[in-house]
């Protein structure tokens, strides 16, 4: 049983590290602010869940696990909120996605 949990947590940690790394490459390589935002928010949710879940499997039912749950809840609440606020601020300042056709009544 302990071996199964170990292997599972290793897979989750490695998968989370891979997702985080892909998001990091994406934030450097993608062409546009909004596509970069997409890459960054991917690491905020999936990478966070996988890495914190992998640590949680190693920690077991302790106080550290409860703190990890709290960290995961905070990150899952604040990450999308910060991304939304950033997209809203960028759009309101007149920065549009590349190659989009704007509707007529779009505020400029």
């Amino acid at each position, binding site marked *: 049983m302990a071996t199964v949990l170990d292997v599972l947590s290793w897979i989750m940690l490695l998968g989370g*590290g891979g997702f985080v790394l892909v998001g990091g490459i994406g*934030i*450097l390589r993608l062409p546009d602010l909004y596509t970069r935002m997409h890459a960054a928010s991917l690491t905020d949710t999936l990478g*966070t869940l996988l890495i914190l879940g992998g*640590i949680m499997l190693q920690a077991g039912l302790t106080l*550290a696990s409860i703190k990890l749950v709290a960290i995961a809840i905070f*990150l899952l609440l604040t990450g999308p909120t910060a*991304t939304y606020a950033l997209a809203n601020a960028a759009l309101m300042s*007149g920065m549009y996605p590349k190659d989009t056709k704007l509707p007529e009544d779009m505020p400029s």
Partner: protein
Amino acid sequence: MFLAASLAIFLTMALALARALVGPSVYDRVLAVNMFGTKTVLLLSVVAFLYGRPDFLDLALAYALINFIGVLAVLHFFENRHGSDTHNAEDK
């Protein structure tokens, strides 16, 4: 295994810092700094178990909150600076 995850997070932080340095607009920089902050939280959690010191989780918890408030404050500042007429205080 904690070491591999922490190295991946560390590399990602370096990439985000590079984007924060070259980013053409101010929003690119804010995005990169936000990502840097969340990756710091993850790195603190992983390092807490890498070195067997679960006290670091408290720091990660505090850093998550401070990072979020900081990003919102910076966004509010720049929103007011570049804001257009259609965007006023009532939809904050």
